[in-house]
């Protein structure tokens, strides 16, 4: 009976609209991007960093900004992998995962902003990646793409490749436990 009551409440709640949400337009970094498209936004775990895709020198390129100042952080090591696609950030913005291109081939890249190290991933099998999502702690990476004519999602273990990037106040080895069963 209880689930039915909750579903009924749910139906009542849908359509109430938002109540006093604070919203803002993500400002471009400088006037140069004022009239341009800005796509595929991704925030770090606690919102200190925003990365999105803009068009620069005729190619899709990542723009990473501190929030809320909008101060842009250059990403020169990624330039040779343009056009960029599908960015994703870890908790503190230490890791930036993205899809890039090199010699016409799609590449999955992880930039460690703490060390400046760029880690290109070689995917097993024949998955052609189209989208990605990096787990906030950097332990896993989900890729969506096409393999053998089929669209699917695969998850990869990165725990042995990169250190975890945990939310502030959590010791290394601490899991971010699910609170909801």
């Amino acid at each position: 009976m209880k689930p039915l009551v909750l579903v009924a409440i749910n139906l009542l709640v849908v359509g109430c609209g938002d109540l006093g949400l604070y919203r803002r337009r993500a400002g471009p970094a400088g006037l140069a991007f004022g009239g341009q498209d800005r796509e595929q936004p991704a925030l770090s775990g606690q919102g200190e960093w925003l990365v999105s895709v803009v068009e620069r020198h005729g190619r899709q390129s990542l723009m990473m900004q501190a929030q809320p100042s909008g101060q842009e952080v250059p990403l020169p090591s990624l330039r040779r992998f343009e056009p960029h696609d599908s960015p994703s950030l870890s908790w503190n913005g230490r890791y930036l995962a993205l899809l890039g291109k090199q010699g016409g081939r799609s590449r999955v890249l992880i930039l460690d902003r703490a060390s400046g190290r760029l880690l290109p991933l070689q995917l097993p099998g024949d998955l052609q990646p189209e989208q990605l999502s990096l787990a906030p702690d950097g332990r896993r990476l989900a890729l969506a793409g096409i393999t053998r004519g089929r669209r699917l999602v695969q998850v990869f273990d990165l725990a042995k490749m990169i250190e975890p990037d945990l939310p502030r106040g959590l010791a290394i080895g601490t899991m971010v436990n699910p609170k909801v069963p």
Partner: protein
Amino acid sequence: MIKGGWSRKGLRLGLFAGGMGALANLTGCMGTVPQPVFPLDRRLEELGPSRDPSLAGPWLALISNRGGRDQVVLLNVEDQRPVPLPGLNRPNAQPLSVGVEAKGDRLALVRQLEGRTELLLYRRRLMSSQLIAINPPGVPRRVMLRADGRELAVEVSRDGQWQVDLIEIP
């Protein structure tokens, strides 16, 4: 001992080390090979065609096509089990983009329903959906929910341009 040179053993060792170095260089150029998470991959194959993944904490949200209909699926990566999302997947709705927070309670969704494209926030604990208006008016396409569940980054078509709206959630 070869006079004035290396021993045979030393030469072999040198060649072996050189070979391994060349192999390491080659691997470095090609990239590091990550391992798929087993047996999650089998579970994902069973789901059918899938796209738009969102990973946070132990949770993986994605859009999967079952029986010709796209729907949002939330899986716990640790035990590979999908969890129920009552009230979220409506038969006449087309999900476009989904995001999940690390606690797995809040999901953000862009969907098409009855000719409209709408943004909503779903709370699993309450089994409730809250529509979030796009203001100034625009059409959402992609949504990303911050891992702590406190903010949405939304790709919005407005005035003939793609823009990014940031919406804080109390």
